[in-house]
């Protein structure tokens, strides 16, 4: 982030290192084609300029052979580049199972970050070096985009849904964080710093934040406050699906399909309960859309997630 003239961004994650190779490959291909096209153009323009004595006899006859040759060559080259990029993109969609989940909420014009231990920060993200982190992005208003050039990644934060993004930082340091989707007046100021720390320093930082409750604990309080426990609680007489042991497992739906109980499924079930009804349960749950903010929602999701490891009670 220093002020000197730079040509390339910092490389601060394992993925960014792989991206550097892809970038080099794309540059090499482009330079090759550029030299070929520009070289031929310049040679032809000089050699066959009007008035030059160069030989113009014996012009090419079977031009379709040339056409087929260069079409095929271009096609094969392009498919190679495609496969390379696609391979890395698939990697971006496969977060490791041991990644730490950090929730990020975008709103005009700030990023609010909530760590699993309940620590909160604004326009800043502290992460430990060498450990995979999965960001769960949401937005309270318009579309934003969480971009970290030093990690070569970004993802839109879309209102009404969760999107995820993961990385494993490899270099300690401060890196810029931007909003990359135009979101109104102060779009350009909606950014901050990602700080990658040694694990020990990171733990100290977490402790210094003075958080009293973890996200899941805050979520448990909200779970009671919004009356969720009235139906989903252990003592309930209402026929509602139990949430213990739910997270991360497939849920059979009334429609005959199966849904994976991930962040998005839980969130959608709270806001749009009629969309994916669990098989064997009447569709009686009311929608909480408009009553729960993104901030509260992610805590309730964190709570339900924390129930995922518990044994399912017999009912």
């Amino acid at each position, binding site marked *: 982030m220093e002020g000197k003239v730079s040509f390339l961004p910092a490389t601060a994650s394992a993925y960014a290192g792989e991206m550097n190779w892809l970038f080099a490959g794309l540059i090499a291909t482009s330079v090759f084609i550029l030299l070929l096209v520009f070289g031929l153009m310049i040679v032809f323009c000089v050699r066959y300029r009007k008035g030059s004595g160069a030989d113009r006899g014996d012009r090419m006859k079977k031009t379709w052979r040339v056409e087929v040759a260069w079409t095929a060559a271009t096609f094969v080259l392009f498919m190679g580049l495609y496969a390379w990029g696609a391979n890395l*993109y698939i990697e971006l969609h496969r977060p490791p199972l041991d990644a730490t989940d950090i929730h990020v909420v975008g709103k005009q014009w700030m990023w609010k970050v909530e760590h699993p231990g309940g620590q909160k920060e604004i326009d800043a993200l502290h992460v430990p070096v060498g450990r995979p982190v999965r960001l769960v992005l949401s937005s309270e208003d318009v579309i934003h985009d969480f971009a970290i050039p030093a990690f070569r990644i970004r993802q839109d934060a*879309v209102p009404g849904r969760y999107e995820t993004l993961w990385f494993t930082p490899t270099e300690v340091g401060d890196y810029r964080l931007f909003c990359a989707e135009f979101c109104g007046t102060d779009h350009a100021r909606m950014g901050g710093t990602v700080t990658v720390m040694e694990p020990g320093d990171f733990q100290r930082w977490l402790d210094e934040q003075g958080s009293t409750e973890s996200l899941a604990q805050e979520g448990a309080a909200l779970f009671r406050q919004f009356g969720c426990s009235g139906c989903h609680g252990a003592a309930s007489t209402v026929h509602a699906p139990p949430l213990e042991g739910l997270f991360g497992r497939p849920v059979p739906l009334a429609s005959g399909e199966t849904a994976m109980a991930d962040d998005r499924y839980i969130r959608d079930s709270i806001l749009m309960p009629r969309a994916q009804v669990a098989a064997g349960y009447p569709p009686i749950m009311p929608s909480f859309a408009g009553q729960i903010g993104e901030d509260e929602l992610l805590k309730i999701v964190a709570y339900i997630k924390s129930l995922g490891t518990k044994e399912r009670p017999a009912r």
Partner: protein
Amino acid sequence: MTTATFTGKAEQPTRGAQASYLTAEGFTLRSWLLTKDHKRIAILYTISITLFFFVGGAAATLIRFNLVTPPGLFQPDTYNRLFTMHGIVMVWFFLIPSIPTTMGNFLIPLMIGAKDLAFPRLNLLSWYLFVIAGVLGLVAIFAGGVDTGWTFYTPFSTMYSNGYVVLALAAVFVSGFSSILTGLNFIVSIHRLRAPGLTWYRLPVFCWSNYATALILVLATPILAITLALVAVERLLKVGIFDPALGGDPLLFQHLFWFYSHPAVYIMILPGFGVISEIVPCFARKPLFGYKFVVWSSIAIAGIGFFVWAHHMFVAGISLYAGLVFSLLSYIIAVPSAIKVFNWTATLHKGWISFDAPMLYALGFIGLFTIGGLTGLFVANLAFDVHATDTYFVVAHFHYIMVGGMVSAYFGGLHYWWPKITGRLYPEWWARIAAILIFFGFNLTFFPQFILGYLGMQRRYASYPPEFQIWNVLSSAGASILAVGYALPLFYLGWSLWRGKKAGPNPWAATGLEWRTPSPPPPHNFDVTPTVTRPPYQYRPDPEPQDV
């Protein structure tokens, strides 16, 4: 051949062989505003889009001015309105109409040996719709502006923006009907009004390119119209379509918008391919290399262009599989574009090349389009795009195509056919200086933006971190050279209207039917309907024009 016009007067013999379209209907404003002559309508369009080019250019100048210092010189809201205005004006009021409505209108009937387009009245109506749309757009700008960006992304545009969004939507909506009428006219004219002997494979590539463009105009524009109408409905009536708070889906908007707006990129560039395919053989004095490949690559681009739209959405929240498919299709559509570049280059081989201004623009086009196309391979690449989308890398990429490519082709074509349109020659040296200034000014403006984008400067930023300043200053310096380059033709072309040498019917010794009639052409183009007996571009090294 069927006659091109359906008016009674059109059948009268022309008043004296000397009267050109510029003089035959008289000099009154009324004679221009009520004309049904495709050539006069082309002039009306040229004047209109030139005005918009300088309005959009003024916004661009202020944008580059703002970005000279990291904190920016304008208030963020002012800046946001400037880039929105630049985008809307340049896309819908310059680039999309640019070559089709000016050179396309003027030249297609001449190139196919017709007296006019198939529907002269619709042609005039199309211009009036364009003017109405333009006025609506200008009213939106001067009433206070719009801050959504030209992409109108929801739910920002429907629920959060405080600009004159609906007025701007209305402007674009109306301009769409103008596009559709022009497209319809071209398709019918090229099918029905070709001169005897002018088979499809004897058509100049300019006609083929505009034909492919017209197909996209007619098929894609209605989607834009309905999409913008839905945005207006949600904004005005609060009906939930795109806003999730009302039960809508914001990605639905992006799918619909890019389903038009990606084909629209090809609306902007295909006519440019046509112009370059006319200029290169003429100044290389050689037939176009691989005519059929050039023709069919245009049609392929127009077709595949409808199936690549979601490559604008790789980080927007589409599924992994959608990303894989759309990236693959985007690489496939790059193949026909590459074929064209190879064919133009091969046309130079063993030619007798001269370097008049149109050829300088054409060579500049090939160079800049190649860079734009190659960086297209970067942004079509899934992993690379995750890093580069919505940065200045993308901004630089599409300006290489749209400005380096399309605007160079527009200027190249304008110089090439200027003698035909006005009957006068432009001053050659001034034109060459402008072409070279534009080429270097362009590269200085936009090449630093590739570096900026890869470093991480996001687009639509009114202010930026200080480490990006050096590249922004270079870019702004380039923009001032570019501005001079674009302003120069206004003066020397204007001067040539009165003082330029008389051109004669065929100053470039070019093939093509448009050169077989006087310059400027008579109102009905040809005294005798021409008959075509040979393929196009039968150029020989000697300067004698070839028979057609």
